[in-house]
């Protein structure tokens, strides 16, 4: 009983920001919609293919977003695993229109080469996946925009939220999960919903 309540409260807490989106969503004009889009962030990222990337380039389908750093031992591999879990829940056709975007929060240490190695090691170097880095200001802006907390520790490692966000093809975040184990199916459902 206690656990059910605890989970209930956690779910309530986690879904609140999202239901706020959902609630206002219906009577939102196209302009409003665009107004809260992450595409308004114009920073340039560099992908492991050494190509420039703007968030607005991710406009061909839903995007699953997470921020990680490659020297992260504990949480980050789990985040990437959770993203792969979502990918596996989709059919090939469904997954092909989805971007899986991993942004580095560690501009000092995550060079393109390191990110490339990381992508290969974690099997996230297919065309569905984007792994990118940018300047500290861009990292901070994206983190703030998606509501991710992070702090660089003296050791060079980071304390950070474990956060997975899904934005629609207009750049608006429609789904987020943090901290507790990701429910791959509900994330996949959110994507499928966005595709229709």
């Amino acid at each position, binding site marked *: 009983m206690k656990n059910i309540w605890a989970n209930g409260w956690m779910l309530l*807490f986690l879904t609140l920001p999202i239901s706020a989106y959902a609630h206002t969503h219906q009577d939102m004009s196209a302009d409003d919609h665009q107004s809260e889009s992450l595409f308004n962030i114009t920073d340039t990222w560099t992908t492991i293919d050494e190509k420039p990337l703007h968030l607005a380039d991710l406009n061909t389908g839903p995007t699953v977003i997470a921020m990680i750093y490659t020297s992260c031992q504990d949480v980050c591999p789990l985040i990437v695993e959770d993203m792969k879990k979502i990918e596996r829940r989709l059919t090939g056709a469904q997954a092909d229109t989805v971007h899986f975007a991993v942004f580095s929060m560690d501009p000092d240490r995550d060079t393109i080469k390191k990110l490339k190695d990381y992508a290969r090691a974690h099997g996230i170097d297919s065309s569905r996946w984007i792994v990118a880095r940018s300047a500290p200001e861009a990292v901070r802006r994206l983190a*703030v*925009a998606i509501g991710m907390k992070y702090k660089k520790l003296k050791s060079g490692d980071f304390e950070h939220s474990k956060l997975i966000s899904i934005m629609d093809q207009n750049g608006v975040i429609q789904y987020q999960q943090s901290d507790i184990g990701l429910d791959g199916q509900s994330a996949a459902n959110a994507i499928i919903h966005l595709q229709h």
Partner: protein
Amino acid sequence: MNTGCLQANDRRIMNDRIVQLLLVLWTTASTAFAAPVDDMVLLPGGAYTPLYLENEKAVDLKDRSTPIESFWLDRFPVTNRQYLEFVTKHPEWKRSQVKRLFADTSYLQHWSGDSAIQQANELDSPVTNVSWFSASAYCESRGERLPTTDEWEYALADNGRDAKEIQKHALDWYAVPNAALPNVGSGSANGYGIYDLVGSIWEWTLDFNSFMASSDPRDSGEKNLFCGGGSLNTSDPRDYAAFMRYSYRSSLLGSFTGKSLGFRCAKDAK
């Protein structure tokens, strides 16, 4: 005996000279450390112990202090007048044009229009109802940035001067309902020559989103600093004022605006 007198005189003269020398040094040092340039103050580097500690094991007290490099900080919070000039030059930050991603619907709500401030006497009071994104854009337009939380707290700590007074002043202010905002610089400067860090508005920091507060206080292994025993993990459990600032910052999102929330800019010394 004479010799003794002479020695005493010599010593006095020496002492006077030392005092003079120290005065010269002090003056030089204080101008070097607090020279106003564009209404910014250069703060000397130093060390500062944040209220909330890193999530690392076995940190002894010495390791807890965070080095702060010398940096420039605005003497005053940014005013309505200055912010008005900014939106005039950068219309994308006007109330009617700002993107919802960057500022919520209360953005600049105390202004009477896109480029107008209702009360002329508000021109030199701190601008509020600004978001983190808009505050950052303002500072970037000046080639600057927001101060980090550590820098901001370091400036407030004022090298330990009147620490108790600062805490008390902050708490007294947090305890009263919002009054009309006074002009910037109405209070007194701290030892660095910085005004209004507390007593008028809350201020955005560059990394306001760096304080980790877990959604579930029962998560173990993390230093979640809420009631009771949790506060024992703070560097100074008595500093309730600092606790309030860290809690407040952690409650913010980048697009939030508030009628008591403003900012000032900083930049690297280099």
